[in-house]
């Protein structure tokens, strides 16, 4: 299964949520890999705490060089072996493989799509799909050549299953932008159809994930005045109505991740240790990632809209 992670705008928490989902999926016993296709700023290494590739690899063997045909295989980082974080360095019993394919430091965004580039991308996806239960591809924010690249590559491999996750924050502008990214001009459906995807089928393979959501009944809001709480609650129902009108409502949503102080201050994996031992992260956050990691492969969550 290939999963493409995209967001309407930058700063939505796409990378940090994507990496956490992949990490939870590995803990659930699956072999997973994470491909850093955010070519402008490849920072997945930092989130996995692998300092050697914190901002991409420097050894001319990252995804950039692979796609440009400059190295035969992109570098693979075994996170269980190479992470600097104590809590990640041993593979927990029953966990699957957790592999990162880093981008290249100073690589830059793609500037054009060529047939060779699409071919190499499809070849990479095909090979990874042979050995991993889940391959998550971080496709950067907004409309980009990268999004076009993976849409073009997936057309060439009709038998390989894939899904899209669109990450957005729970605000007015983000809801409208997330809808636009999917259904607007040059959006995913538009570009997908141009490359040969059936828009109906593609629509069913796209789900939304809300990030940094502050629920009106959250523990953080206990200290608020009644007026503030009433205002928040009104906002929330307004947003729900807006989301429904834009096709970003509950039915098209795969899940939501609550606002967590840890993720606001540092992009990192939330381990059970962060929740149970040091208690810096909220249990709800870890539970939300765990739930998303299950839903991503649960066909009943992906039935036609």
């Amino acid at each position, binding site marked *: 299964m290939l999963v493409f992670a995209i967001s309407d705008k930058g700063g939505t928490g796409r990378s940090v949520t994507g990496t956490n989902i992949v990490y939870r999926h590995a803990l659930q*016993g699956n*072999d997973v890999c994470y491909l850093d296709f955010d070519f402008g700023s490849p920072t997945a290494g930092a989130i996995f705490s692998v300092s050697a590739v914190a901002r991409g690899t420097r050894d*001319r*063997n990252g995804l950039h060089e692979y796609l440009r045909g400059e*190295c*035969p*295989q992109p570098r693979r980082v075994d996170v269980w072996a190479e992470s600097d974080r104590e809590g990640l360095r041993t593979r927990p*019993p*029953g966990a*699957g493989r957790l592999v990162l394919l880093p981008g290249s430091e100073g690589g830059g965004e793609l500037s054009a799509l060529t047939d060779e580039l699409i071919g190499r991308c499809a*070849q990479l996806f*095909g*090979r990874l*799909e*042979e*050995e*991993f*239960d889940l391959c998550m591809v971080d496709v950067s924010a907004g409309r980009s050549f990268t999004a076009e690249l993976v849409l073009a590559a997936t057309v060439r*491999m009709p*038998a*390989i299953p894939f899904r899209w996750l669109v990450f957005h924050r729970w605000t007015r502008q983000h809801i409208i932008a997330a809808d636009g990214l999917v259904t607007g001009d040059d959006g995913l459906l538009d570009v997908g159809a141009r490359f040969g995807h059936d828009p109906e089928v593609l629509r069913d393979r796209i789900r939304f994930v809300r990030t940094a959501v502050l629920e009106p009944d959250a523990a953080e809001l206990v200290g608020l005045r009644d007026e503030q709480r009433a205002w928040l609650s009104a906002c929330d129902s307004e947003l729900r109505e807006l989301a429904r009108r834009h096709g970003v409502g509950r039915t098209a949503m795969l899940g939501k991740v609550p606002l967590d102080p840890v993720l606001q201050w540092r992009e990192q994996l939330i381990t059970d240790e962060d929740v149970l031992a040091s208690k810096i992260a909220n249990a709800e956050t870890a539970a939300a990632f765990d739930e998303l990691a299950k839903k991503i492969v649960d066909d009943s969550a992906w039935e036609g809209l």
Partner: protein
Amino acid sequence: MLVMGEVQTGLLQNSGEISESACRQVLGLMAGETVRVSRRPIVHALSPERLTGVDCALPTASRSRIRGVGTVVTRCAVTGGRVAQGSTYVRVVRSETDRRLPWSHYLARPGVVEVLGKAKAADLAEGFTGDPAPGCLDLGAVSGRFLDLVQASPLLDRRAPFKMARTSLRWVAETGEPSIRFTLHTERERTLRLTHPGPFTPAVVDLCEDLALHDWLLTSLLVIVERARIGATPGAQAVARLAPAVDHLLHLWMPAARVEEWLTPFWESLERRPGFTRQWRSLVDRVRDQVAMNTLALLTAEAGRR
């Protein structure tokens, strides 16, 4: 001087095993050339050979730059309708001149790379089975590309019963006093150094492919048994996770089935140490014991309900 090759082995990306006729189509990499199929003791289909022209540095242990020009041979195989292999090899010989000749010269010598300038066989052998520098002749990349072609065949449904990494076996064969050395490196990489009496024949390639196939089978069964977490998970769950091995792998073990008589001593020596079949048998017994124990538990539970 020497022969070197690399075999990549992986699970054929199909839900079940494919028939002999499907094998012929999947492996028909070149129009007009036939796929060779042998049926006993296991169905084995071998594609026609394809050439790839190369002009590049050869890997050396001393990191000295040695240029080789010529062609490498690739062929793909499907065993038991279930395991796919891409295999590339090349005979490395000294060139009679110091400059590159017209392509017609190299095309008349398929599967031969001529070395321009000085080179030592030992340096090349060590370089190839050691840690080849990037940018050198990469036979694994060629094998992988052809294996991709097989795996992308529209005849395959790509719904493989389990996920498994490909393994790669890099090998070097030379003429001399018989010896064999098989080494495991990372999870996916293996090397083989072989010295055989008499001149090189393609039978040596058959031997290497047979070893690569059985090493992949053994590696895969180990991974499946590890994933089952016997003892740490409930019996029924462990057995469910072992099921793909029973369905798709256990019947494929046929060591040296296609190895010529004069090369079988090499297989036999690997059977003594490290003992491929010994490890395989013990794993198979473990899988079957788990299945038997689970059946017994089910029967006991059933009897208790009556």
